[in-house]
């Protein structure tokens, strides 16, 4: 069997920068879903402690360096981090019986939108209140990107991470790119 070549969801899409705002595909990383079983909280907390992480409250994430545990829904969080092949299996072993663990690395396309027009671009597609008071840095929301299910994280003041199902990556790119182009054109028209 020849070696299988890995391909990211948006391979071939070069970053798009307009008005200092950039849409790009994030590098592929390890994503592990952790779904605690009833009564599993203590064991989950103990398993996460060595990684400096706690199970997040809704709409939040727990961060330690490059590792993040992102709340992604009811009784569900995603461990996101740089590819650390030794980590996920180790965690799976310690979590055995306390939480259901699945590999989600291949299921998602991760896009980043960063720059002064990022928030207004998202406001074209996302029905969320994205003001600082409602969606501060570090906030997470499971919501919609137009018609697509989405996990949105505000990574920094003007940086957002958009996760959509991998098969819809091209649609997500198309819609975000179009919204960004529109915002850039609006900015241009004002000057």
């Amino acid at each position, binding site marked *: 069997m020849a070696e299988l070549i890995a391909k990211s969801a948006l391979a071939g899409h070069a970053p798009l920068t307009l008005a200092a705002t950039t849409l790009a595909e994030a590098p592929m990383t390890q994503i592990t879903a952790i779904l*605690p079983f009833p009564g599993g*909280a203590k064991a989950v907390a103990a398993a996460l402690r060595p990684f400096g992480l706690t*199970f997040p*409250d*809704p709409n939040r994430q727990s961060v330690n360096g490059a590792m993040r545990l992102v709340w992604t829904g*009811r*009784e*569900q969080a995603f461990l996101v981090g740089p590819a650390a092949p030794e980590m996920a299996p180790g965690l799976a072993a310690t979590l055995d019986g306390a939480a259901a663990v699945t590999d989600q690395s291949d299921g998602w396309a991760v896009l980043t939108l960063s720059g002064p027009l990022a928030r207004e671009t998202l406001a074209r597609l996302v029905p969320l209140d994205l003001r600082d008071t409602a969606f501060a840095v570090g906030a997470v*929301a499971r919501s919609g990107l137009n018609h697509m299910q989405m996990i949105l994280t505000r990574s920094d003041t003007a940086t957002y991470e958009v996760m959509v199902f991998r098969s819809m990556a091209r649609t997500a790119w198309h819609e975000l790119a179009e919204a960004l182009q529109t915002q850039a054109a609006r900015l241009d028209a004002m000057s």
Partner: protein
Amino acid sequence: MRLTCPLCGPRDRREFYYYGSDDYLNRPAEGDGPQAWDAYLHLRDNPAGITHDLWYHDMGCSSWLRVTRNTVTHEIHAVDAVAAPAKGGAK
């Protein structure tokens, strides 16, 4: 219309899927007669006023929700998780 999901917070109604009356939560026991099942599946009140119905936070956290609302004034009185103890965290 906006619903305040107990986990996600206030959201636009397009994030939710509507199912029907919360009668669906009262599933008859195994062995109950056809009348009980007929009532469970098909007999519904159609109130002008307070109603309880089921919504699914499809675009959000996947919680099933019981919404108490007024069909006349459109007021939303309460949004509760169907699985009461369910929280986002591993509590």
